[in-house]
């Protein structure tokens, strides 16, 4: 099983349980269908960063209060603000299947999430290589909603990275990203390499989560 399939299975809540053939076929055909319509788009901007204390972060002119983010960014002096999306066609596709085949909607949703993460990982690896040449090391992505990094900051990231104009990514009054299969994140840039930084799922404190990677 490739990584994104494994991730999709995890998002579907299977934990360590095996997936039967019918579901596997559904997952494969969902990936195939998504491959035809996703529009991978990403945009970012780099800002000056300060971490004055363990509760606060300042990126450009934006002040953020978050212990978890401050911890993630400690030792960095610049930050990448990014927005990424798979595009609006994914939403149309899911809406369409919600009328005819609900099981596929749930699987499409998991597969799309896995594709978006995979895309971001690949993109970050490339950026990491480029930044290494300039003497910078990248921290793991950190998104609003992780720990105490409040979802309200999504708006600011979108504005600072100019995502509406560049990639068509915007937000509703209720703080929901549109298109729905989208991500905002902050990536710290440091001149020092930090060993073994915990990333993504494993960094979360909610250890009893049914979606946790390598969960019980």
């Amino acid at each position, binding site marked *: 099983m490739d990584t994104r399939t494994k991730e999709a299975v995890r998002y*579907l*809540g299977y934990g360590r349980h095996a997936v039967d053939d019918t*579901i596997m076929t559904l997952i494969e055909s969902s990936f195939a269908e998504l491959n035809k319509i996703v529009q991978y788009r990403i945009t970012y901007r780099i800002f000056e960063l300060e971490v004055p204390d363990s509760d606060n972060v300042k990126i*450009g002119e934006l002040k953020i209060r978050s212990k978890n983010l401050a911890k993630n960014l400690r030792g960095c002096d610049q930050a990448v603000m990014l927005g990424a999306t798979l*595009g*609006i066609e994914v939403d149309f596709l899911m*809406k369409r299947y919600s*009328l005819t085949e609900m*099981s596929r909607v749930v699987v499409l949703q998991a597969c799309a999430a896995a594709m978006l993460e995979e895309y971001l990982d690949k993109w970050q690896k490339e950026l990491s290589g480029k930044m290494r040449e300039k003497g910078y090391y990248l921290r793991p992505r950190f998104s609003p909603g992780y720990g105490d990094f409040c979802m309200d900051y999504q708006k600011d990231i979108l504005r600072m990275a100019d995502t509406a104009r560049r990639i068509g990514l915007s937000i509703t*009054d209720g703080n929901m990203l549109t298109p729905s299969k989208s991500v905002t994140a902050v990536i710290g840039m440091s001149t020092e390499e930090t060993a073994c930084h915990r990333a993504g799922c494993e960094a979360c404190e909610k250890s009893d989560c049914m979606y946790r990677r390598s969960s019980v």
Partner: protein
Amino acid sequence: MILERLGKELIYFDGGTGTLLQEKGMKPGELPEIWNLTHAEEMVDIHRKYYEAGSDIVLTNTFGANALKFHSSEYSLEDIVTAAVANVKKGASLGVCDNREVYTALDIGPTGKLLKPMGDLSFEDAYEAFREVALYGERAGADLIHIETMSDTYEVKAAVLAAKENTKLPVFATMIFDEKGKLLTGGDVPAVVALLEGLRVDALGINCGMGPEQMLPVLDKILEYASVPVIVKPNAGLPKQKDGAVYYDVTPDEFAKVMRKIVEKGASAVGGCCGTTPEHIRKMIQTTADIRVCAEREPKCHTIVSSYGKAVQLGGKPVIIGERINPTGKKKFRQALKEHDVDYVLREGISQQDAGADILDVNVGLPDIDEPALMREIVMELQSVTSLPLQIDTVDGKALSAAMRIYNGKPMVNSVNGKQESMDLVFPLIKRYGGVVVGLTLDENGIPDTAEGRADIAGKIIEEAKKYGIPRKDIVIDVLAMTISSDPEGAKTTLEALRMVRERYGVCTILGVSNISFGLPFRPAVNSNFYTMAMQAGLSAGIINPLSEDMMRSYYSFCALMNYDKNCETYIERYSMQTEALKTPAGGEIPLRTAIEKGLKEEAHHAASLLVKTQEPLFIINEQMIPALDAVGKGFEKGTVFLPQLLMSADAAKIAFAVLKDALEKSGKTEQKKEKIVLATVKGDIHDIGKNIVKVLLENYSFHVIDLGKDVSPEVIVETAVKEDVKLVGLSALMTTTVGSMEDTIKLLHERKPDCRVMVGGAVLSQEYADMIGADFYGKDAMQSVYYAQNLLKE
């Protein structure tokens, strides 16, 4: 007047302002529009420089000046816009030294929000925001309105309508395309041009997103389709980043060189966007000074209808218009409309798209129905599940107008006819909203018996349309197929009229094909043969049932025979397996119960169809289906069955239920009365997967779900609960930000309908949270909601 010059001589716009504002000390995060008031001198200076460089049109610094994007407690929008116009005019008075005529363009940019159905901004609210700015701009003395940097066809439609309906100013619109010639929301060049020209903009084009070089191929495409003057305003290359700042590095000389190419290709107005400076504009003007007279461009004659993401062109390969969204002669469809079962209508759309339709006809006319409201709703909902363009089919002027207004794209309109009354009603709407209109060849004297007579009426319709400025390419003639059982010459007359109309006027044609066999036995045989004959006679679009294999066989064969299907690829793909006999599903004979438990849809359909021949539907439900659903539900609770499997079973059960329902109806029995439950995703929440999961499961357990959709206000939920007298409402919310509106809804419900219980669910909720907001039940997963509903309503 700008319109007298545009298209005849080359017109120059200004360039970017962002870089210049930064140079003058604007900080990141500051709202640039405020500078019109706080730094008027600096703004005037920037405008002056562009006029000095030679610009004919300078844009006001109002890109983000709309109520949805501009939030300031200190400054009013009206003051900002008024000052912005005054600043440009002052810049002109200082910067224009050669007495040339120059213009102030009110700049309107996007709202930065996505419109419904995928976002949360309603079309009307977007329109209102643009209307406000347009009014201020005209009042302040702007000479034209320039709508730019749009990446959504729906939003640009709102902006253009707001500008045209509320001011007398010329309206220009430019959009951002990517290198592939697509908008961020998926639309392509033909779709965008069709939409904007339909809305009667005075000029259209491309700005931002790319540098001049990258715009060349997109420009070629625009010039291929556009009849109105074309505007091109590139960035100074692609954005780059250094030390935290974005910059553009195409130099004025390089910029000017490519801009010359752009003008030579046929652009009528040119300027710059992000990263361009007065120097870029000066160089561009110098480099193009010798070609200031625009070559005359031919009006294009493509007949195009479009949706948000797709354009369909008529006149080449025959186009299929799906006829099934129509209550005429369809009992189930009528029933669905009466019960406001929108999902049923949408599924008719999806199945036709899957079967190969290019355009969907939409007719929801029934006596005693609020057709304008329903037509509007169905058109909106259809556009959220299919990208096919729609043909709005109604005789109700109000319904037509309501649907055309909110339609995302350039619709097809069915229909106008030769009666003066009909033309007086329909043509003004086409002029206002754009559209390709079907012209029926009948008039006050009825339908002529001869091809000649029908062609004459077509001519009359085309002439009358001309008075409204509606070009011939936007008219598709229907010469009407009359049944051969009452008129033996009917088919011959129709075919002759088809040929005549095409030859005489060069317009596209359309026919409701299946009328031809009315009153005859075994109609598919006659229909499919007549369909082929009509295509051979030049039919551009047949209104047919794409689910009829006979019709599709004719269609694919015709396309293969006439070389519309390259190497017969489509034909082969579709029919190479046809030699194999139809077989039972791969799994063989599987009992219904097992099929449902395993979530096998085809098998469930097959098994149910067999069972229903020998057993009562109710017996099958109780003995086979409910036990299967229960077993899967229990497994889900225990953690041995997972959500996708639970839903596959639900999907399979749904299909089996449909088979049983059909059987019940055929035997003349009605279903048992079902308990009603209202489901909704609360206001502010646009994620509805959770709610839809619960819906599918509840329906399988024989509840009648009234699905109000997503982002539903407390008032609508409560009103429905009261009106339908439901005893249970299910609410879903995904995020903390929307739990507040869930709480409001619960309060209002308990107040206005105390006997109604509320169950809640969603990612953000917990038992504690649910208690806190006063919910009667918290469903931690979809099955829990089913059990609660059963306990509450069925005991």
